[in-house]
């Protein structure tokens, strides 16, 4: 028997640490980030920016700091995630800097955003290390399931509070503390994933097996589904109240996918899609906010003299002008599109780096999602599996919603492009998400401890008592 177990262990997949590969990719990612900064300088001003060494040094320090932290705190963690986010973040910084320069040249007085973004990135990297330091074992988080659920609700409600809540661009999703403003919904996203995962791990058998069959689909009992459904309705209701369509879409999709993954019932996807279609149709008829979004999606070229050229159209023209290989960094004119540094950063990338650049960026997002799902597959405990899946799905949905919106595949709803677009709360929360994923993958890829089996040789002889 022990031989069979030994053979099984030899055949079992043993992961290497791959920290060297991570360092190599990190250096390449720095070339991507700092190279973009240099190319922007060359394109706009004709010279390499004088502060390139300070800038590059700072980025390098952040990357190396995170790498060292991973080496010590999560030595078996996935080697691809950290370099990918470092590259995306570096590219985003360069594009934002480029748009700052564009605004400056035109004399438009907004920004600069790049300095702010660099500060937030620093904060994000610090939070990344702190999460790795504090969360030594992700399974401990399961003990705080309901705490996370409660915290998520509180965070979602905060912007509606009278004193600290702030309304920017028509959405009341910000809180302001002095000069700082923050989007608590971004952190609530992470906490909701943890809550859903913790709840579903405990109740998934009841959800999948107990219940009655109706119209070919097994519906679970109310007492099993109740708490999570209530939780989800509250978060969704809050978001609709705050006119944050993108986030409500994100939470809905996240809830659906996690329910499907936990119960292995494809029926949920059918039910969810039907619910979504009905909900979207009704919202289109009733809510004016939704109506205007759908209108500008269906008829983007309808010209309104008061509004000027719609944002969506100028973004589309920008991407068309970029073509296959783009205008070159600093050679396009992405400042024409409003919010070209945040919501429409994909359009700016499309304009300056072309389809080739956009594809590279989308592939990087694909890699993040792939690594998250791979972590979920390798992970040994159900809670970790669900958390990793949920976090991966958050990225996938967020990129789909925002890029689909910018490219006019679906109606435009405001969501940040992870790691690229200017916006501190989203950046910081995403760094924390990656730290959580690395923690889970470290646990998952760590080789099993050597178990010395007791020797199964001849049995102990019994002393004969006379």
């Amino acid at each position, binding site marked *: 028997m022990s031989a069979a177990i030994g053979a099984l262990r*030899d055949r079992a*997949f*043993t*992961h*290497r640490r*791959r920290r060297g*590969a991570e360092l*190599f*990719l990190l250096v*390449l*990612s720095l*070339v*991507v980030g700092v*190279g*973009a900064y240099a*190319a922007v300088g*060359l*394109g706009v001003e*004709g010279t390499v920016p004088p502060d390139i060494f300070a800038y590059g040094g700072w980025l390098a320090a952040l990357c190396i700091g995170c790498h060292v932290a991973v080496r010590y705190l999560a030595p078996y963690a996935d*080697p*691809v995630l950290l*370099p*990918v986010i470092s*590259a995306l973040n570096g*590219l985003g910084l360069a594009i934002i800097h480029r748009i700052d320069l564009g605004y400056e040249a035109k004399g438009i007085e907004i920004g600069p955003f790049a300095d702010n973004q660099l500060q937030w990135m620093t904060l994000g990297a610090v939070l990344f290390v702190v999460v790795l330091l504090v969360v030594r074992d992700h399974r401990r988080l399961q003990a705080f399931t309901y705490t996370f659920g409660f915290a998520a609700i509180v965070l979602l409600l905060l912007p509606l509070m009278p004193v600290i809540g702030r309304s920017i661009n028509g959405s009341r999703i910000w809180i302001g503390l002095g000069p700082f403003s923050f989007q608590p919904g971004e952190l609530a996203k992470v906490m909701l994933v943890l809550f859903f995962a913790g709840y579903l791990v405990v109740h998934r058998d009841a959800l999948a097996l107990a219940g009655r069959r109706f119209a070919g689909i097994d519906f679970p009992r109310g007492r099993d589904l109740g708490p999570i459904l209530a939780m989800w309705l509250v978060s969704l209701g809050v978001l609709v109240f705050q006119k944050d369509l993108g986030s409500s879409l994100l939470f809905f999709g996240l809830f659906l996918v996690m329910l499907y993954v936990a119960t292995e019932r494809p029926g949920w996807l059918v039910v969810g899609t039907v619910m979504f279609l009905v909900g979207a149709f009704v919202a289109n008829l009733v809510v004016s906010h939704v109506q205007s979004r759908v209108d500008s999606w269906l008829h983007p070229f309808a010209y309104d003299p008061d509004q000027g050229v719609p944002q969506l159209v100028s973004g589309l023209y920008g991407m068309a002008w970029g073509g296959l*290989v*783009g*205008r*070159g*960094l600093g*050679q396009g004119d992405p400042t024409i599109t409003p919010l070209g540094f945040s919501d429409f950063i994909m359009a700016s990338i499309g304009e300056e*780096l*072309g389809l*080739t*650049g956009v594809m*590279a960026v989308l*592939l*990087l997002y694909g*890699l993040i999602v*792939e*690594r998250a799902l791979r972590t979920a597959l390798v992970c040994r405990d159900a809670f970790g599996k669900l958390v990793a899946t949920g976090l991966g799905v958050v990225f996938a949905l967020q990129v789909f919603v925002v890029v689909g919106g910018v490219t006019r595949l679906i109606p435009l709803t405001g969501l940040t492009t992870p790691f690229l677009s200017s916006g501190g709360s989203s950046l910081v929360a995403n760094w924390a998400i990656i730290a959580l994923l690395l923690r889970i993958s470290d646990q998952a890829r760590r080789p099993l401890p050597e178990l*010395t089996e*007791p*020797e199964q040789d*001849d049995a*102990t*002889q*019994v*002393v004969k008592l006379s």
Partner: protein
Amino acid sequence: MSELTLMLIRFAYLAILWIFVLSAISVVRSDMFGARIESTPRADRRAERRREKESRNRVKPAKRPRGAPTHVQIVEGANEGESASLDHAPLLIGRGADAAIRLDDDYVSTRHARIASNGDQWFVEDLGSTNGTYIGSHRLTQPTTIQLGSKIRIGKTTLELRK
């Protein structure tokens, strides 16, 4: 800045971007198929050193009072003459591979007994062995204190606490 240089910069940057993407993918690929069990001599040596360091770290060189026992001596039986330091307490006695005091005695169970201390006293505890653990002629049913010179009989082996 000439048109040509700008074009070169543009393509060079796209190339850098794609080199990064492709090398990330190649790392993913090698992660999928290239997982090996580290068994090169170098890795073995490294693992050996790590284990040594760990075992060294685990040892707490607690100051023991003068006159306290420092090791267990096997005074009778197949392993006569061997001894084990009490620094690594609790000590497992048995025939199994994980026992700290391993006895080649057919009358000893795989995990037979344990010697542990509560700080100032030493105890011996039977771990549900087949033939029992004796002090003198008394078969142990619960953890029992032992002093210097107490003779513990396990199977055909006798152990003694020594200074």
